[in-house]
């Protein structure tokens, strides 16, 4: 997971890229076999352990999901973390400290 959190004035801009295939289950491989559905379903972003953005995703989010969101009230050095779980029970987490 790649993350960035930049404070400008009062607003912190958070950018996140998660590495994930986000397979719809409708695509075929080179041998004509359907690639099984495999996608992130739940994502939670927290600021100092408090949830700020909770997400439910379907298969329509692009491969290697990209996200930008804005927070008010975060300070330099605050911790922003992102956790996800996919339909197969795989999980991932990442975090970053707010910088200017």
């Amino acid at each position, binding site marked *: 997971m790649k993350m960035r959190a930049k404070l400008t004035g009062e607003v912190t801009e958070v950018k996140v890229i998660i590495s994930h295939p986000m397979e719809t289950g409708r*695509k075929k491989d080179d041998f004509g076999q359907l690639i099984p559905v495999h996608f992130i379903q739940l994502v939670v972003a927290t600021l100092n352990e408090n949830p700020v*953005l*909770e997400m439910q*995703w379907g298969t329509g989010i692009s491969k290697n999901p990209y996200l930008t969101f804005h927070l008010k009230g975060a300070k330099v050095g605050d911790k922003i973390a992102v956790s996800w779980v996919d339909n197969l029970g795989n999980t991932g987490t990442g975090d970053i400290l707010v910088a200017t």
Partner: protein
Amino acid sequence: MRRRDVLKLFAGAMAFVLLPINAIAAGLNLKWNKAAFEATKLADASKGLNISAETPSKDIDLIAPDRAENGAIVQIEITSRIPNTEAISVLVEHNPTVLIGNFIFSNGALPYLVTRIKMAETSDIKIIVKAGDQYFTASKNVVVLENGCG
């Protein structure tokens, strides 16, 4: 060690690894909305999200390309100026399953979002904003030149 024990140990370890995110999700009451995400029609997705009445609003900005070269990656930017915006849902009318994502804001998160979505064919993108028990919508048509759902 017998095979059975090894498997048991492995299962135990897996459960332990899976615990944190499940604990997070459970603590937040966040569940994947199967009915809404498996809906193939806008009306069914709205029903799955427990939305009864929707009002079109000019206070939702949806920035998306007029024409997308590649439907696999269509970047969208959403801003809601509706007071007390709690959640933003993104839907694509002509996708095999219409609901793309549901985004719930709290604790100082501003009702703003940039993400990238898949579009199977030319379609309206529909945004639904939840504010209290009211729902507001905005739409934009995007022409897709190459399909992105495979």
